[in-house]
Every structure is written in structure tokens, then in C-alpha cells.
């Protein structure tokens, strides 16, 4: 039985190699252990149980890996078609009128990377001041400035969350993103959860990372949801580094007490000083004083969360909550004399997934305004 058992395990390990590297790096050992537990249990249940385990595993391997391999197959097909086209073009030109058609064939080859949907990215780990390693990746022209940085650590955690946005920003703009401490490929910390790290610590890790990676100043920061508060805090601490900002359906520093005025049920922590401090929210009735006359675009969702999402609130309270959110966006746009407010059709709070093109457009425009102001 032992030998047979080992053969099962080897077969499973082989199938596992088809899964993504990312998944295996983080959970490979545990996945193998879970399979061994499952197989041991099935062993006691007899051949039918073992067969059931394998049918599930084959099913999930096909489901999980097919999209990735289909994508690769697609790329292979495109590459083959391109290669055939180039070869035929060259052969044809060789047979007919000399060198000029070869130039034509070469220009096709050069234009192909530009039309590829994925910008060239380069990711590396950098050690930041508190000893943690953080992952950062950039796309676009390395010589271009300002550097656009999509922020993580509050609101969103890992660089991958911004992938759709990063793909839509033109390659003439340098765009970087990173995994916050505790998320993705950056160092994981036992506690607190990455989203609960104090905001000042997150800001200082960002600053240290940008320095370690020698990102070209100045920066345009992009922050979503609670990430809006994060990038305002960053601008406040390092104003000389920041040339422009894009807020993606941003949270607001006053929102805790303003929303508690609608219903105290919404967040039991609305008056908890530690919670407020660690997330950059202001205490009861304290107003935001932040102001920065730099290029700034506020992107606001148009699809509101349904009232059923807030059990316990009346329709009136729910409407008041949505109105308050809108007021916050209007207020943020007025925090710079260059501020613009844009309502993004077809987008809820998850704009980075629903309308990445709208975020990329805003980035392009802020960068354009920065250039114009220089």
C-alpha cells in the first residue's frame, strides 16, 4: 500500500505543477499536505472513494488551468502567425524588388510589442527601513516623469489589483505599483492584518520603498477607497515629492463621524480614538484642513450600493448615506484649485475592475497637467 500511496502522491505533485507559480509559492506545501490527508481518508473508504478524489482533482485541474493555457496557446498562435507573416514577407521581397519590402516587414515586427495588451513590467523585492521586503513592479518608459504610483496598503493590498489599470495607461508614462507589507509577494507579518496596519506606518513604508527603488521624482499617486486617505496623508508628509493625485471613489477623513450622525449602528468604532488614528479618520466634528493646489482628479462611482446592503437602515438613512458619500467627493475635488470631479458611468466602488479605462484616462490627464505646469 505504501508504494501505491506514494505513486498517488507523485501523480498529484505532477498535476500540481500545472497550477500557477504564485499559488504554489504561497500554498504549495499545504496543498500537498491536504491532498495526503484526503487520500489517507479515501484509502479507508476503498477504491470508490479514491476514484472520487481523483475525479474531483482532475476536474479542478482542468477548470483552473485551462484559461491560463488557452491564453498561452493564443499567444503561441499569434506568434506563429506573425513569424509566418514575416518569413513570407521576407521571402516575397527577396524574390521581387530588393530591400524596401524588407523594411516594411521589419516595421511590422517592431510594432507588434506596442500593440500587445500587456506592458513590459519589471518586478523586484526591495528592503524597506523596518527590515521588511516589499515587492514593486513598474511598466512604461523608465525615463518618463512624473512617476505614477498606484497605492496599496489601505483600500487595496496587492499590485495585481491594479493590473487592468496599469495595462491601460499608455507606455509613455512610467507606472509603478507594489504589494503592501502583509500582502502578495511582500513580506507577510503575523499581525495585524495588512489592512489594519497604522496609516503612518504604511506611509513610512511607502516612502522607504520609493527611495529604495530609486523611483524618479516627482510622483503622481493614485489611491482607491481608504487609499485616498492614504495618499493625502503621504502628500501631507512629503509635499515636495507629489506632483498630482487621483482619487478613486475615495474615502473621506470626516466620514466616520458624519456617517455616525446618520446611524451609529454603521460602525461601532466611529468614536474609538485608536481606530480613527490608525486609519487616518478624524474625531467627532473635526474638519479636514488638507489642501493642495496640484493637479487632482476625483473619480466618483455612479452605481450606488443597494440599501439591502445595510440591513437595519431605513430607506431615508440609506439615501442620506449615499448623499454623504457624494458630498465627500465634491469636497475632495475642491481641495485643489485644479481639482476636477468626474462621475464614472457604469462603475461602483470597485472602479479598478469595473472601469480601469476611466482611471487610466485620469492618470493620463493629471500627468499631462503636470507637464503643462512645469
Amino acid at each position, binding site marked *: 500500500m505504501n508504494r501505491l500511496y506514494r505513486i498517488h502522491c507523485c501523480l498529484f505533485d505532477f498535476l500540481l505543477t500545472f497550477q500557477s507559480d504564485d499559488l504554489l509559492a504561497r500554498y504549495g506545501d499545504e496543498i500537498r499536505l491536504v491532498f495526503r490527508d484526503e487520500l489517507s481518508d479515501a484509502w479507508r473508504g476503498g477504491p470508490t472513494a479514491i476514484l472520487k478524489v481523483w475525479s474531483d482533482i482532475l476536474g*479542478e485541474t482542468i477548470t483552473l488551468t485551462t484559461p491560463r493555457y488557452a491564453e498561452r496557446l493564443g499567444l503561441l498562435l499569434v506568434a506563429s502567425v506573425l513569424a509566418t507573416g514575416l518569413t513570407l514577407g521576407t521571402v516575397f521581397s527577396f524574390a521581387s524588388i530588393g530591400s524596401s519590402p524588407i523594411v516594411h516587414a521589419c516595421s511590422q515586427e517592431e510594432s507588434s510589442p506596442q500593440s500587445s495588451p500587456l506592458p513590459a513590467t519589471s518586478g523586484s523585492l526591495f528592503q524597506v527601513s523596518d527590515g521588511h521586503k516589499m515587492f514593486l513592479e513598474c511598466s512604461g518608459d523608465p525615463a518618463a516623469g512624473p512617476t505614477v504610483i498606484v497605492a496599496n496598503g489601505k483600500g487595496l493590498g496587492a499590485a495585481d489589483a491594479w493590473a487592468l489599470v496599469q495595462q491601460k495607461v499608455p507606455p509613455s508614462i512610467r507606472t509603478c505599483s507594489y504589494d503592501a507589507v502583509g500582502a502578495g509577494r511582500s513580506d507577510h507579518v503575523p499581525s495585524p492584518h495588512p489592512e489594519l496596519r497604522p496609516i503612518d506606518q504604511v506611509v513610512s513604508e511607502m516612502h522607504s520603498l520609493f527611495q529604495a527603488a530609486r523611483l524618479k521624482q516627482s510622483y503622481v499617486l493614485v489611491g482607491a477607497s481608504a487609499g485616498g486617505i492614504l495618499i493625502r496623508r503621504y502628500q501631507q508628509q512629503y509635499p515636495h515629492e507629489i506632483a498630482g493625485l487621483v482619487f478613486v471613489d475615495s474615502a473621506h477623513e470626516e466620514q466616520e463621524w458624519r456617517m455616525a450622525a446618520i446611524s451609529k449602528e454603521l460602525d461601532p468604532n466611529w468614536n474609538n480614538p485608536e481606530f480613527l488614528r490608525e486609519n487616518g479618520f478624524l474625531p467627532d466634528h473635526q474638519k479636514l484642513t488638507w489642501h493642495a493646489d496640484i493637479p487632482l482628479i476625483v473619480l466618483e462611482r455612479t452605481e450606488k*450600493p443597494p440599501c*439591502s446592503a445595510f440591513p437595519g437602515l431605513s430607506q431615508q438613512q440609506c439615501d442620506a448615506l449615499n448623499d454623504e458619500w457624494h458630498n465627500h467627493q465634491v469636497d475632495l475635488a475642491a481641495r485643489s484649485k485644479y481639482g476636477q470631479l468626474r462621475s464614472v458611468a457604469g462603475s461602483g466602488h470597485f472602479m479598478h475592475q469595473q472601469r480601469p479605462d476611466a482611471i487610466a484616462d485620469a492618470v493620463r490627464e493629471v500627468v499631462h497637467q503636470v507637464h503643462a505646469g512645469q
Partner: protein
Amino acid sequence: MAREHQFDDDLLENLPLPIASFFVLFALAEEEKHGYRIMQDIRELSGGTFSVGPATLYTTIKKLFDQGLISETSDSTEDRRRTYALTPAGKRLLGAEFHRQQELLDLARRKKLLRIGEQK
């Protein structure tokens, strides 16, 4: 303790939850668990109608962790297994998903398409 509010809006737009995410959160609702226990409990909770394999389980765990819905704890005393627990945000999202399902059931009942309690 309950620091969920800042993610409310993000979270609620995740609804309805994909079935694997729903069952992983559901399995973690009572207490923290390691991977294999989650797998067994999913089978039990769904009455055998739904099960996940190891790779699907960890693909889901990875996604939920990256979204801040579950947390991981490494237990250095016992091999290389981590245990997983709901974060306050995860709890809230699961609650909202149940609420959404409840509303659908209520609707079906009001339209007299389903007579819950009269079956069997």
C-alpha cells in the same frame, strides 16, 4: 475589535459570492480552521452537494486573503499548516450574503413559487 466599516462598500459590491468563496467563509464562521478541515466541513455544510479539491480550496483562500476577508496564522509547532479565520470584514460580507439569500427566498415565498416549510 470590529474594524469593518471602512471596507463596507467595497465588500458589499462583491455580492453575490462565488460558491467556493461562500462555502469557505461559511466553514470559517464558527471558528478558525486549517485547510483540510475547511474542505471536510464544506462537504458537510453543503450536504454533499458541493466539494472543493485542494487546488481550488487554496486558490479561493488566496483570493479571500488578498481581499482581507480572512486572516492566516502560522502554527510553527505543527508541520507547515496555517490556520485561517474570518476577519471582521469577512464576517460582515458573509452576513450580507445570507441577508441577500434571505431576501431572494422571501421573494420566492411572496410570489408563491416556493413554500418553505411545507416541503418534505
